[in-house]
């Protein structure tokens, strides 16, 4: 956290952030065999990580040199404690130097780190504990490490799981180096497992090898962001998301780029500190999902023009990703911060997913956003036809060319490859595609077929550029958080009077393209009071355990369609509801 004791802060020497570049050291863009090799090289530089607090004051500096030294020493301790190469350690991924030390200690010992999330909601202890328990169990973690203040959650989650240690970095430091051994990983070995995919109840850990990580970092830096000498990055994205973990942290280490960090929770509290740090340090690269830009635009809208002391001229790549890109939000940001030197040409749209390490496509830097407005009726028929009248169309942001080393195909339902402006499912193959989900052959077989990854996203081509229109798969994304309909449905089906198969969680899209979650619930009682009770309870329980406010729509018994194997046909249920083939019952309470 950002708390600091004023009396000790005054006594400490003044901290200086690491420079953006190292004289006489050639910048290399992830052309290494392994992550440890890349940190060995970065340790020759003067660059590194800088941690700021909510007020934008530098609190800690972790140079790549320090990071390497500490990582090696802790690798010996972990190894001496009996954790073998290939075994897993769960790490609570707070935005702090301790996480980096432990993440890289694992690398030097050949141990596979599993970054785990931090809590971000009021009163959802049980849901949070379930989530981290699911990840620890699925990965078979041997230790769970993190900041002291979060360990009680880990201890609760670890009940019934046998762990060698639950502790902090200091607890590892206290272990002897003893007979510990470093392990030189090969490119084909796993580097880490990322649980950004999958639901709480059915966690899916993406296995990332050193080879795929290097391939992705290389093309992202060389062809995507065009990282060159003296570039400086700024990030508030959490280490437990692919964009924060790979896009910045690992992308920085593998390209010897300095990165300035603001913890995610401090960004959410003081979003404008993000821009202050960019301005103070003349950062050139920073990313956020649309909502990050939205928060800033909202804060500044209540201030007098020019009230802030900001100079954003250095911000060359203002990346957007992580959820559907909202063009109107970005426009509002660009207008609000133009007086401070922000150029809308800096906006850079990209597309990616953890199953491909991170990055799949990038638009050209310094070109700004390219928005394609297409006809809504044609879109229903899977064709992306430019709208005759822009006001009636749906606007999508073009996400650029597929990075070298990867290939994309857009296919129809039957698997035929589609051409220009035809909407279908996006498949990716190439050097960044994961080997699979950890310990989950069924989950892997569902998405990986003959070397092609089914991204679950719907897309079309304009020339060789990719446009993402939505998700064919069921995952919903709100404010950067992935929500799985299975989790919502599971919760609903355990309410008194409801049973398995009674619920279908779907996303409804209004005329402006704004998505809102809804849940269709089969309701047997005809009594108005009983219906109102069920609707209210569904809403409360979903809010409580999944953290999503759903519109509850009661529908008649046996109205939700099933697949031939008896599973809920969610996509068909949605289509039938929109078409009016499933009608809503009177729930006795106002919708929404």
């Amino acid at each position, binding site marked *: 956290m950002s708390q600091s004791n004023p009396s000790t802060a005054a006594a400490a020497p003044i901290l200086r952030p690491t420079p953006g570049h190292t004289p006489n050291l050639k910048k290399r863009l992830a052309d290494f065999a392994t992550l440890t090799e890349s940190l060995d090289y970065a340790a020759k530089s003067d660059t590194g990580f800088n941690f700021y607090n909510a007020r934008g004051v530098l609190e800690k500096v972790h140079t790549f040199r320090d990071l390497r030294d500490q990582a090696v020493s802790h690798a010996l301790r972990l190894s001496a404690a009996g954790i073998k190469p290939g075994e897993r350690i769960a790490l609570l991924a707070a935005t702090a130097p301790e996480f980096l030390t432990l993440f890289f200690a694992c690398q030097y010992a050949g141990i596979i780190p599993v970054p785990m999330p931090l809590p971000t909601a009021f009163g959802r202890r049980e849901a949070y504990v379930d989530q981290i328990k699911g990840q620890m169990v699925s990965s078979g973690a041997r230790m769970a490490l993190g900041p002291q*203040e979060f360990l009680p959650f880990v201890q609760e989650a670890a009940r019934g799981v046998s762990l060698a240690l639950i502790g902090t970095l200091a607890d590892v430091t206290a272990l002897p180096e003893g007979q510990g051994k470093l392990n030189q990983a090969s490119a084909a070995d796993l580097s880490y497992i990322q649980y950004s995919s999958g639901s709480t109840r059915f966690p899916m850990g993406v296995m990332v090898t050193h080879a795929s990580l290097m391939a992705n970092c290389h093309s992202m830096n060389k062809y995507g962001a065009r990282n060159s000498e003296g570039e400086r990055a700024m990030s508030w994205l959490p280490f437990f998301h692919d964009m924060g973990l790979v896009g910045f942290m690992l992308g920085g280490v593998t390209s010897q780029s300095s990165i300035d960090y603001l913890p995610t929770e401090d960004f959410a509290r003081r979003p404008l500190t993000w821009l202050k740090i960019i301005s103070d340090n003349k950062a050139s690269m920073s990313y956020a999902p649309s909502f990050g830009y939205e928060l800033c635009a909202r804060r500044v809208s209540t201030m007098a023009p020019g009230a802030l002391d900001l100079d954003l001229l250095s911000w060359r790549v203002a990346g957007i990703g992580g959820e559907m890109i909202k063009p109107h939000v970005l426009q509002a940001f660009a207008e609000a911060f133009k007086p401070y030197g922000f150029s809308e040409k800096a906006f850079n749209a990209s597309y990616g997913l953890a199953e491909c390490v991170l990055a799949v496509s990038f638009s050209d830097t310094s070109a700004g956003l390219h928005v394609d407005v297409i006809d809504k009726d044609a879109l229903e028929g899977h064709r992306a036809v430019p709208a005759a009248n822009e006001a009636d169309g749906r606007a999508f942001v073009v996400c650029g060319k597929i990075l070298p080393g990867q290939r994309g195909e857009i296919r129809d339902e039957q698997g035929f490859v589609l051409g220009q402006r035809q909407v279908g499912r996006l498949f990716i193959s190439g050097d960044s595609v994961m080997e699979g989900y950890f310990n989950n052959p069924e989950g892997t077989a569902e998405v990986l077929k003959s070397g092609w990854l089914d991204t679950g996203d719907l897309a079309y081509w304009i020339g060789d550029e990719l446009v993402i229109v939505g998700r064919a798969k069921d995952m919903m994304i709100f404010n950067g958080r992935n929500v799985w309909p299975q989790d919502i449905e599971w919760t609903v089906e355990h309410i008194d009077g409801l049973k398995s198969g009674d619920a279908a969680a779907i996303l409804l899209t209004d005329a402006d393209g704004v998505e809102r979650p809804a849940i269709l619930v089969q309701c047997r009682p005809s009594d108005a009071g009983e219906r109102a009770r069920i609707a209210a309870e569904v809403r409360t329980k979903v809010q409580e355990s999944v953290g999503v406010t759903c519109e509850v729509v009661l529908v008649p018994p046996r109205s939700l369609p099933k697949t031939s194997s008896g599973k809920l046909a969610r996509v068909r249920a949605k289509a039938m509801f929109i078409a009016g083939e499933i009608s809503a019952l009177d729930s006795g309470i106002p919708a929404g």
Partner: protein
Amino acid sequence: MNAPTGAEPSPDTLAALFEILKSFNKTGAELAPGTRFSEDLNFDSLVVMEFIAVVEDAFDISVPLNILPDVATIRDLAVAVEKIVAEDKL
């Protein structure tokens, strides 16, 4: 840990929180000690942090993230705030 239920916060702390919550109360729920942030006020994780920022300014404290999972109601938060204020004075 941090189980704040059971203790009763001072009316002043509650009143200050109710005042802050007025501008965050999008559902029009009644603001009472037992009002729940998630269920009654529909706070998502972004609103939570915006709200926390205002609470921190009002009480001149830093609210650690690890208390959130155990704070379900306005009463819980009031107790937690008072605890942090008291600890800061030590």
